[in-house]
């Protein structure tokens, strides 16, 4: 049942995203075609079928024109680089059926271009959108700066500071020496006390 809830949400998300694209996306070439994706992280398949310029998401596997077995990470690489052949060679992706269908779906994902600012302005108005976008940019910049800073600090520590940091054996050695000095001071104190006592008796 969670599966069905997931399919339902994914279907809504995909169709909403496609409808927001700046130029209309034609799914005519994929009409009545089905791409089934089997992700190693999930224990159920996801089938994307196209009907009447809409994507239907289901768990139906017997109608697949193309089946893609892969992982989430590889899917991300596929989306950004279109490295289909390379990924198959690396055994990161197993593809059966019509490769063109997978390529067309990948191409749609790659060419998505959504003007989020205009979409948001339709709902909350121009000025709040502008302010929100400015705030968003500031937050993103701040986060990017922090990430860079953390990265720089981390490499500085690994490359330079780590070598200068006192090691456990050095600390142990130092503690031993301190103990030794303390012991010697105690001995000298005892000896001085004894000598002082001897002098007083004579």
């Amino acid at each position, binding site marked *: 049942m969670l599966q069905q809830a997931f399919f*339902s949400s994914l279907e809504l998300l995909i169709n909403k995203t496609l409808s927001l694209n700046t130029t209309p996306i034609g799914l005519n070439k994929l009409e009545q075609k089905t791409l089934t994706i089997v992700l190693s992280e999930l224990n159920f398949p996801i089938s994307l079928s196209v*009907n009447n310029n809409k994507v239907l998401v289901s768990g139906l596997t017997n109608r697949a024109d193309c089946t893609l077995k892969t992982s989430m990470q590889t899917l991300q690489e596929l989306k950004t680089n279109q490295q289909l052949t390379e990924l198959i060679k690396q055994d990161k992706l197993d593809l059966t059926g019509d490769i063109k269908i997978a390529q067309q779906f990948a191409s749609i994902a790659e060419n998505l271009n959504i003007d989020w600012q205009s979409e948001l302005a339709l709902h909350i108005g121009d000025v709040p959108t502008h302010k929100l976008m400015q705030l968003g940019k500031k937050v993103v910049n701040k986060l990017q700066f922090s990430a860079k800073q953390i990265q720089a600090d981390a490499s500085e520590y690994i490359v330079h500071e780590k070598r200068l940091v006192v090691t456990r054996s050095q600390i142990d050695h130092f503690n031993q020496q301190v103990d030794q000095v303390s012991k010697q001071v105690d001995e000298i104190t005892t000896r001085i006390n004894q000598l002082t006592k001897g002098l007083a008796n004579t």
Partner: protein
Amino acid sequence: MSDQQQNQYPDTKNSTSDNTTHFGYKTIDKKDKVSMVAGVFHSVAKQYDVMNDLMSFGVHRLWKRFTIDASGVRPGNKVLDLAGGTGDLTAKFSQLVGKNGKVVLADINSSMLNVGRDKLRDKGLVKNINYVQANAQYLPFEDNSFDIVTIAFGLRNVTDKDMALRSIYRVLKPGGRLLVLEFSKPEYELLNKAYDFYSFNILPKIGELVAKDGDSYQYLAESIRMHPDQETLKTMMNDAGFEQTSFKNLTGGVVALHKGYKF
């Protein structure tokens, strides 16, 4: 559930004679059931979808999606959505069978059929859907004509369920399958009690408030209790000729999806 209701539940389940049947907890003449059920659905047709969402907290959509996923429907298939009511399953099947396929939305009740037809037309689904007013016991279709038959939340309202199952078997193609989505018996006692309380105390009140018809929803609750449980329905399907019959409980058995093949 009241004592009276509890007493009626086990007693009436198998007590009908050849000429009587159940209408909720009442035992009535078989010939009267069609018109009495028709009265209920004429009354609730316009509010049917809203009430479904309210009563099931929207979960009926997931139950129906599960049915679609279990159907194994392919492009070009011919599907009969029996007791299809407002066409939720038909809408999805219509998209999945494509232009070479066909979906027949059949219901005994003209009001439900009209609401379903309007809704599907509003969604732009017109090309591959036919509408037929039909009684599940006497399906007006040729033998071996459908790849898939579904009946969602409809079988319990049928006067003679065995006859309806035989009729469905007749119209299915060899290799075709029947999917029965219907309220059933919850698997856990605690859930059963909570479900009884909800069905007999809250559900009719929601019906009264939203659909201005508490009696129809009282009938709904009673008819669910009088419907055969999972194993009984499976046996009935086997008796009608279906093979490889199985069922899957959904939401703890509140609903069950039965599946059977004709070979």
